[in-house]
Structure formats: C-alpha cells, structure tokens
C-alpha cells in the first residue's frame, strides 16, 4: 500500500476569538503507527479534522503528496478519519442504523473491505439493525474501529478508539491494529488518553499541548531521555545541575525530580547516592504536559 506523506505547515485555527492551534507544523511519514496524545482541550480532534479536510483552518496548509488536501478527491479517498461517535448527539450519524452507517463508509472509501467489516461485526457482536444512538459508548467505539480498519485507507486516523472499551476489547483492538499493520504497512494515527497500554504499539508519538506540537519522536527514543532522580535534596540538586528539571516533589529533605537530559549525564547520576529510575510514556507525558496541575 503506497501512502503519501501528510504534511501540515503553519497551521492556525481559532474558534471565535480563541486560538486552539498555534502555527503548527507536523509531518506524518508513511508506514508508521503514530500515537497522538494530549490533554483535554489540547486540540487533538481539531488537528485531526483539519489534517483530513473535515474541518476548516484559519491559515497554513495541509498537503498530501505535495498537493493540498482541501477538496482533493485523491487525497480524501486515501485518508480515513474515523471520528469518535458521541452518545449525546441527536443528529448526524446517530440516527442511522449501524448497517446504513457502514454502507455510507463503503461508498466513501474506495478500498473498503466488506468481508473484513463483516468479520469485525461478528467479532464485536454488533447488531446491524440497531441505531447508532442505541449503542453503548463502548459499542460506538467498536463501530469507529470497524470503519477505520475496514476502510483499508493508506492513512487511517482513529480518534479516541479506546474510549468506553473494556480492557479485553482494548487489548484485542491493539492486536487487530498490529495484525493489519503487519499485513498492509499502512499509516495509522491513533489518539488516546489511555497512554501506557498503547505506548508499545506506537512507533512514534506526537505530544500536543495547548495547540502546539511538543514532541514528534520515536517513542522509545523519547522515553529514554527521561529519569526520576530522588534522594537528599543537596545531592539531587548537585546531580541534576545542567539537566532540564521538569517537575519537583519535596517531602522534608527528600526530593524527587523529573529530569530530561543526555544519556551521559543521566548515567553520571547513577554514581551518586541517589535513586535513579526510568519513566514510562505516561510519566513523560505528565512531566511535559502536567504544568503543575497534578500534585
């Protein structure tokens, strides 16, 4: 499957006076699974909507294979954006029966794989005659996932596919995603708030914070730059001198800091009388985007 490169340059978006994306640049290379993480209101869905020409922008450009995506039939049939279905919405797809919603997807996506869709229907035990609005939140997520996978689109974007799913189905979803990726090598962008269980699936992770791209990096490479260092405050301060300190927690003289730095300096910390422990992606995310909210 030959996907092109999806590229955003200088993207700005405002809702009324409130700017939600600030001069944002992003490149999505073909053949990778990207994770998109960000806090509530960071602009994830807005960004995904603009990347797929389902939402307007105030300035900047989104291109696919060098061509603007807006009103570009070739680009739009190569890109599937499976939106999160909202239980509270009483318009749009919610009035459709599952089978009609799938039929519209079949028309929209030229690579639609009907057999695959039916297999997934069966696996998720979705009833085709039910209205979308009658589904539980978890079943809505299953419909989102089903459309994304069966679209077989070279670039497939899933917004919060894990929302409302129980842990067994979430694990099954990541399995299905990896199986399909192994077969097709198509590009996926997956946004999620359940970071840790998805971290190992993402080759690259994009961290969006307050409308800006904080990181677009290889997941493990990013994680390896961070450590917790804890111990006596004087020793911790000495060891962390020259490292970027992201957050600090103090209990009496005991101090724990989240630091980012190059490997050599981090290794040097191991020599001193402090505890140095690695982070996972969730820890990294909180350190970068917590802004001191969580204590």
């Amino acid at each position: 499957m030959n996907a092109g490169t999806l590229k955003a340059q200088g993207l700005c978006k405002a809702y009324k006076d409130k700017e939600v994306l600030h001069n944002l640049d992003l490149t999505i290379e073909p053949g990778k699974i990207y994770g998109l993480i960000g806090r509530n209101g960071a602009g994830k869905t807005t960004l995904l909507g603009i990347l797929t020409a389902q939402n307007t922008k105030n300035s900047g450009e989104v291109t696919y294979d060098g061509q603007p995506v807006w009103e570009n039939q070739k680009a739009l049939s190569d890109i599937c954006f499976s939106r999160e279905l909202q239980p509270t919405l009483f318009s749009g797809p919610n009035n459709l029966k599952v089978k009609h919603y799938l039929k519209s997807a079949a028309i929209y996506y030229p690579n639609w794989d009907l057999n695959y869709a039916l297999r997934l229907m069966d696996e998720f035990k979705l009833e085709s005659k039910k209205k979308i609005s009658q589904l539980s939140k978890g079943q809505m997520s299953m419909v989102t996932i089903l459309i994304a996978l069966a679209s077989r689109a070279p670039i497939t974007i899933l917004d919060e596919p894990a929302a409302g799913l129980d842990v067994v189905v979430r694990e099954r979803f990541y399995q299905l995603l990896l199986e399909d990726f192994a077969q097709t090598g198509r590009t996926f962008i997956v946004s999620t708030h359940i970071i840790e269980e998805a971290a190992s699936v993402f080759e690259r992770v994009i961290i969006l914070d307050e409308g800006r791209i904080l990181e677009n990096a290889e997941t493990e490479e990013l994680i390896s730059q961070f450590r917790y260092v804890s111990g006596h405050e004087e020793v911790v301060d000495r060891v962390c001198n020259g490292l970027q300190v992201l957050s600090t927690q103090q209990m009496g003289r005991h101090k724990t800091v989240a630091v980012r730095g190059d490997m050599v300096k981090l290794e040097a910390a191991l020599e001193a009388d402090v505890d140095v422990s690695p982070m996972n992606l969730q820890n990294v995310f909180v350190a970068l985007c917590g802004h001191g909210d969580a204590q």
Partner: protein
Amino acid sequence: MRGTLNNQSLIYLQIARMLEDDILRGVYREEEQVPSTNELARGYNINPATAAKGINLLVADGILYKRRGIGMFVAKGAGETVKQKRKSTFYDGFVKPLVKEGASLELTGEELVSMIEQAIKEERV
C-alpha cells in the same frame, strides 16, 4: 519466549534480553530459528519496528544472524557470546550497586566478602 514486558526499561532492550535468556536456557539452540519481528509484535502487542530494534541489537552483537528470505537464526557460539556480554556488564550492573548498598549500611569490606562467600556456599548446597 516467556516472561512479560514491564515498564522498567525500554521495550526493545527487554525483547533482546528475553531472547538472550532463552538462548542461555536452550529454548533456542544454535542454528535454530527465532520468532520473526511480526511474531514478536503479535505475541507482545508491540510495534514491529520496536521488535526489529531488539533483534537488530542481537545481530549487531553477533548473537543472531539473518538468513535472507527465511528469517533470523541463532549464531554459532551465541550462548558463549551472551555470557561474555553479560559478564562485562556484571560488574557495573551487580557488583557496584552491591558495594554501594553495603557502604550505605556501613558494612565493612570483610563483612561484605564473608556474606558473598556465605551466599556462594548456600548456592552450592
């Protein structure tokens, strides 16, 4: 392969380590095929690129080698290579932390050595 992934170290390093463990245990013998990138990805729900990174690490160390169009195989003398590799990190990874912990408990050198000798005796019983 056995074991599960934890979030104490990077996943590709864990994959490499698990394969090494299995080579030491004789799960995979010399000239035998190890699981492919995709099999590892499926088995552990990880990105194939991450699994490939773990395998490539072992290729670089001469523990695995690639047979074009077939897959990855355990190199001749791989068990010995793994042991040598681990011996070289044993000092930094085990001995130094042991001495450091001993020092913070104010154990003398003699006490530490006698504890080690005691442990060696118990291991042999």
